[in-house]
């Protein structure tokens, strides 16, 4: 599909990442502050993440090979790998902090678990977009 230029693939990628970041952060905040945790659709995380992955895969699959290679070049891969590494440490710290909040009886374990996992899931996307939009290049 020739309309899938490198610029458009990049736009799709960043739009999907931004949507995932907003969704996961929103769900994490909801897990902490929602009056009724049971009403929060925590299961939505998996389908939303999968839909995002399908969109990105489709953009890369249907685009001309050269356009996909440019959009997902080594600069992109470098930033994305770094973002994933930040995500790993975000999980470690989130669960360390969440565990302490549970131990101190500040947050119920269900809310803490949901907030930690969904909040940390947003970190790679936020970090990647901050790097791309933050004026470093």
């Amino acid at each position, binding site marked *: 599909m020739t309309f899938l230029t*490198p610029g458009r693939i*990049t736009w799709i990628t960043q739009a999907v990442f931004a949507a995932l970041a907003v969704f996961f952060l929103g769900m994490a905040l909801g897990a902490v502050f929602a009056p009724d945790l049971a009403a929060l659709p925590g299961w939505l995380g998996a389908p939303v993440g999968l839909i995002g992955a399908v969109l990105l895969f489709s953009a890369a699959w249907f685009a001309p090979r*050269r356009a996909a*290679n*440019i*959009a997902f*070049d*080594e*600069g*992109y891969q*470098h930033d994305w790998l770094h973002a994933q590494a930040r995500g790993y440490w975000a999980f470690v710290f989130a669960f360390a902090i969440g565990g302490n909040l549970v131990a101190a009886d500040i947050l119920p374990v269900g809310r803490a678990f949901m907030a930690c996992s969904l909040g940390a899931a947003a970190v790679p996307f936020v970090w990647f977009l901050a790097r*791309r939009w933050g004026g*470093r*290049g």
Partner: protein
Amino acid sequence: MSLVSNLKARRQAAGLTQAELAERVEVSRKTVNTVENGVFVPSTVLALKLARALGCRVEDLFRLEAGE
């Protein structure tokens, strides 16, 4: 170990924009920009492609900081 990049000067001397150079070496303009700014260290393959596109050697584009 820090890499000093002469890419911007070489590109401008060749009369190319970042987008034009990016097109020639098949990467995004963003990647060329981050290489020029020293934010991103390119792979050997990309360094060789950049040198070929600008008609010079890799050593003309990049060098290690003095004393390293």
